[in-house]
């Protein structure tokens, strides 16, 4: 059979080695039997084929959506996405409880944006206090997102890591310039780490190598390839994820981590979800357009290999969950 060179690579590395190279299975959250207090833990990754290619591999775990919970009142969120949460804006604890109890969230992403010096400048102690109360009354596994690289993040995430010792939370994010502190905190207190690099195959692998050079286990790392929202670089993220995933499946151990995409924050800041239809009648209903913007971004990323999606709008989350249902149903 004559094949174009690209297919040769594809066939030999993936078809023939099926089962040889799989994405790492990453478990988020510890139950009491595992030394934590979560009601259950979540596993992602583990597949040995391209996303949803059930016809040529096995995909033991479905992608999981994490609900984004900001620690302070998210005044910058636009009405469409604030609307469903009007009752809890500024009350992250109730907010988290509601999405878990009423919306069926199985994973939440606590965003400690309020700790940023240019925002509310909340102290590490305040972040820890909030985290403690959430751990106490919300039973699901947790992603903890720091305020952004820098000393403040190191302080906040280290304090949170200690406060949540043994809970196996996913700490976001380590970056190439600033990874040692977070990795050390994750190692010391039994957590996982998001390794974030700016939409680049090589930088992604380099950070994974640097983290593994610290003897941090690869199955406790998740890749954040940096998400471009739809219309704002999504296709760059998409292709970088496809490339990383292909390299991972062909046996590159430093690329075999699952992906996380912070979809919500990227989608809900763009012009296209904010402009009302009165201003741009062609664009159609703002609310539905915005929700579809988040859905489209998430679904495209699922096709590129996303394992964890951090999202905002409940309706978008529901639709993406159903889309995942369909894509996980073996033919």
């Amino acid at each position: 059979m004559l094949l174009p060179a690209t297919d040769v690579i594809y066939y030999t590395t993936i078809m023939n080695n099926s089962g040889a190279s799989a994405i790492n299975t990453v478990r988020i959250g510890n139950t009491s039997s595992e030394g934590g207090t979560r009601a259950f833990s979540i596993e992602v990754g583990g597949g040995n084929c391209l996303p949803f290619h059930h016809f040529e591999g096995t995909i033991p775990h479905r992608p999981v959506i994490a609900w984004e919970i900001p620690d302070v009142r998210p005044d910058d969120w636009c009405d469409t996405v604030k609307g469903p949460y009007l009752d809890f804006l500024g009350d992250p604890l109730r907010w988290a409880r509601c999405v878990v109890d009423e919306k069926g969230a199985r994973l939440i992403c606590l965003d400690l944006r309020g700790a940023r010096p240019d925002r509310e400048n909340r102290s590490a102690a305040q972040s820890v206090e909030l985290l403690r109360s959430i751990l106490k009354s919300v039973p699901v596994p947790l992603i903890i997102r720091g305020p952004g690289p820098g000393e403040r993040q190191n302080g906040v995430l280290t304090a949170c890591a200690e406060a949540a010792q043994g809970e196996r939370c996913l700490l976001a994010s380590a970056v190439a310039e600033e990874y040692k502190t977070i990795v050390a905190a994750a190692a010391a207190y039994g957590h996982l780490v998001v390794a974030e690099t700016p939409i680049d195959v090589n930088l992604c692998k380099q950070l994974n190598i640097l983290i593994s050079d610290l003897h941090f286990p690869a199955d406790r790392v998740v890749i954040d390839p940096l998400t471009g929202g739809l219309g704002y670089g999504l296709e760059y993220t998409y292709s970088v994820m496809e490339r990383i995933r292909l390299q991972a499946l062909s046996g590159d151990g430093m690329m075999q981590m699952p992906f996380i995409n912070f979809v919500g924050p990227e989608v809900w800041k763009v012009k296209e979800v904010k402009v009302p239809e009165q201003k741009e009648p062609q664009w159609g209903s703002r609310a539905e357009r915005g929700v579809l913007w988040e859905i489209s971004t998430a679904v495209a990323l699922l096709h590129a290999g996303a394992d964890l999606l951090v999202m905002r709008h409940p309706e978008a989350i529901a639709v993406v969950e159903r889309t995942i249902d369909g894509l996980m149903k073996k033919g």
Partner: protein
Amino acid sequence: MKSFRVKFLPLGVESRVAAGASVYDAALTHGIQLRGECGGLGSCGQCVVKIDAGACPPTPHASITPDRERRGYRLACAARVEDDLVVFVPEESLLPSASVDYAAVVLSEDDRKRDRALAGVEPSPPLNLPPGIARPLGLALDLGTTTVVAEFVNLRAGNCVSRAAAYNRQLSCGTDIISRITYAERPGGLEWLRGLALETINDLLARLMEHSRVGPGDLIIAIVAGNTTMVHLFLGMDPSGIRLGSFTAAHTRYPAIPAREAGVKIDPLAPVMFAPGVGSYVGGDVTAGVLACRMHECDEVTLFIDAGTNGEIVLGNREWMMGCACSTGPAFEGVGIASGMIAAPGAIEEVHIRDLDAAPRLGVIGGAPARGICGSGMIDLMAELFRHGILDRNGALNAGSRCPRLAERDGHPVYLVRTRGEDCAARDIYLNDVDFKKLLRTKAAIQAAIRTMLKNVELDAREIGRVVIAGRLGEAIDAGNAIAIGMLPDLPLERFDYIGNGSLWGANLMLLSKERGVALEAIADRITYLDLSTHPGYMEEYVASLFIPHTD
């Protein structure tokens, strides 16, 4: 005590500074060394900075026009910190990171490499030797962006009479090729650069003439091998086409001109000839090197690497050749590196570290005491520090490692190769964290260029039969170490061949053999130019190469 926040741009560093301190001193605490011949007395007017935010009263001085004063320009030494400030430091106010010693140095050790390159050549110069001169000499000139090397060649016997090297004085107008071109685009800039090149060359010649006891009239021909930009500047031709235009915008062939016209102080009627180039960034220095390594005669695929300020790479054999260039910077020639120097007597060219606690074992050109470290020594040092875990894969010094030779100088972490007094060293010899980043970028540019070119012709590195390294890195380079840091492809060591200054040997061949001169023209015709600046894969390879040894 009252204090204010002062931030320095474009570096972006920031700190609290006691009220009343001078901006000059505040800059120093960050290792930002401003110019200032007067030593902060407010008289020389060299330490001009711009206050982008915050209140700061004017500091009257002749060097600050009223218009600039209105826009916030102040003398750093006279400006006092009485408010939170954002201070922009213009490049021209910065002290160059390494002061460059432009003095010519006579070199005498390279002859075995020269002999090898010239093996089998019976002198047949491209001009008739006048019977009146007992010992007619030719000048072979390697006109580099950072270093200029001149050699006097006996046109009858073919031997080298003497050889000297000096830093190109154009360095004061920018260390890389693009900066030189933009400098030339300023009013009067081109003439200024041409003058600096001639000054460099003529001082070298004076030094050599004195050393060899010959006069200008004894030198009856000159061959110049230089990159396209250097030759443009040497001839006073506008180089802007080189960076702006396509392949054809730059001149790559140059007619011979009399020395008088060129401004070179040898026999005024002596022809000055040029090695032909291929394109904007693959010039006569490269074709000369290819001639010297005989790639054009070989069946096996040869990889030729000239690790100069621009790294130039040619891949090919007698059937085909492809050439490209990448910007590596002058680090391997010692410029911009804390203890860097040219490969000349006193330069550390070999470094061995067996025991982290002890002083590294060194090879010094001409023997100790060491004065600085040259390219080959830097490669060794990087490889050894990486092996011992002192340097991490990103090229950063591991602050946490326990090594007594790690210290701090001028606010930067450094590795001390020699401390002052150790083995009679006259000063501390070290590389700092920024130096290692520069070296990492240098090696990455070369590595990425090699990988891009191999990909482009779809060859595997293992199909390369011979790797020829040329340049002014040192007397010898340790290919194993260059492989360890990823600069060279991972091939059996016996395939590597360090030929030294290939451009100079090529110029020699043109001086001594008409036939080789013809062969050189053919080489320039046949090299296919690959433009990396517009090549979609190059940047990605570069990012992948900014890692020791490589991301793969």
